[in-house]
């Protein structure tokens, strides 16, 4: 059965931090088109802080817990609670699971998404990060149900996340700051969806690498 140990997956959290810091400018730029342009700053401030608090050898659950804790503790506004609860819930879902397999990953993702929806109240089609998370989860679970392996599930999730991000381009924002623009919000990617796609892709790539390495 395909699985990755907590310890092997741990460094992926730092890769997610690096990805957010690297794409800070891009995230800010698309937020600037229909929002207030601070999404890159907000995200990289929180992720950088969390990265500083992690050390070599921390497992994935610990990494997510640290990310969640830092976002809830140091980032106000909307990103703190949304991504904060996302990572906190995922960390809890990973508790005691070592190694992590596809079933556990699916449960983890479900817990994370449920809490974001619970806190933020966004639905698919509102032009938020939920438009990345929801299809990503659906693709992962469908692959799992078809009996595919962890790696194939992750690959399916990654593709669906990217498509989900692209789907936000034609949406009219229904929630958050951009919703005030109405029709004018159409034609641009959503910033939160972009950061979310980046995080899921980095997570999938890291796990795929470790799966390959373990095989």
């Amino acid at each position, binding site marked *: 059965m395909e699985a990755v140990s907590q310890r092997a997956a741990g460094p992926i959290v730092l890769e997610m931090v690096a990805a957010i810091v690297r794409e800070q400018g891009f995230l800010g730029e698309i937020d600037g088109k229909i929002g207030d342009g601070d999404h890159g700053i907000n995200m990289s401030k929180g992720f950088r802080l969390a990265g500083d608090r992690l050390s070599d050898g921390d497992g994935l659950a610990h990494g997510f817990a640290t990310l969640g804790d830092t976002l*809830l*503790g*140091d980032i106000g506004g*909307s990103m703190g609670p949304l991504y904060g609860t996302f990572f906190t819930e995922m960390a809890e879902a990973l508790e005691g699971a070592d190694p992590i397999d596809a079933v556990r990953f699916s449960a983890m993702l479900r817990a994370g998404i449920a809490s974001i929806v619970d806190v933020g109240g966004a639905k698919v089609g509102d032009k938020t990060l939920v438009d990345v998370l929801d299809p990503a989860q659906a693709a992962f679970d469908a692959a799992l149900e078809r009996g595919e392996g962890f790696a194939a599930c992750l690959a399916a999730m990654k593709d669906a996340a990217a498509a989900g991000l692209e789907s936000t381009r034609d949406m009219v924002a229904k929630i958050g*700051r951009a919703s005030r623009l109405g029709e004018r919000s159409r034609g641009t990617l959503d910033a939160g969806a972009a950061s979310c796609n980046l995080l899921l892709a980095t997570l999938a790539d890291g796990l795929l690498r470790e799966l390959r390495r373990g095989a």
Partner: protein
Amino acid sequence: MNRVINDPDQVVEDSLKGYLAAHPDLLAATGHPRVLRCAGPKVSGRVGVVTGGGSGHEPAFLGYVGPGLLDAVAIGEVFASPTAKSFDAAFQAADGGQGVACLYGNYAGDNMNVKMAARLAAKAGVEVKTVVANDDVASAGPHERDKRRGVAGEILMWKAGGARAAEGGTLDEVIAAAQKAIDQTRSIGIGLSPCTIAAAGKPNFVIEDGTMEVGIGHHGEPGIAVMPTKPAAEMAALMVERIVEDLPFGRGDDVAVLVSGLGATPVMELYILYGHVDEMLRARGITPRHRFVGNYFTSLEMSGVSLTVTRLDAELERLMARPARSVGLTVLGS
């Protein structure tokens, strides 16, 4: 931008040092750097009352911490919601075993952070119930009241909730009093010049000289109309009308009225506006029983005014009259 600051990213930290040094009789530090509590013994045997919000609105929010008002406050960056953990720490600081009433304003970030914090607090055995202020009539239509923002009316909600808690009301009673207060409250603002967040270094919105933005939000959120600046009497008429129609207030009502400057409006002009408001309310048979005029809820150095009116029943009248002491509002016992 020409300001009395050090590092623009440290304005909140720096000002909190000043608050603690200036008001040790009212404000005390807690284990959390962004949470202050009421000085003196910890809340015990009664409901604790908490709020929180972004900085830059001083004396709101921390200036309303004090006996008969708020027990603790969570403090955010300038114009940004406090973190979930800050709210949680404020709940812990205000808990005296009878639960905590969190009375805050309807902003996306605050909603989420309070919700998260209430969960954290529940895990620690602290019961939190909330009232969400939505007094700004300009921020959404009357059929979407849940989308309206909370503005200066929050002060009267805090007064009602704080007084009910001081009377020894249960958590449900405190929540009910605060909810009633905000349900009976309507506000509207007019903006005359923008403001600048020091860390940003330039205004993030524009108001042309000679025009006024009716219904502006406390962070410069767009209002319902931009028009040539009107004389004070017409501003008052516009504001009173919009408010009175929304509730609707009627002949024989007793009300509390609060006129707040947004930061840079000369105090004498707040009184010019109040004079008209008082006259117009009385002409409709509405009697201002409690009157507040000053810089009660600001937006940095924005210029403009907000008007808030609360309809009082016997309970709210009693709660408004109860003594309270804080930086922003002191009510003497009678």
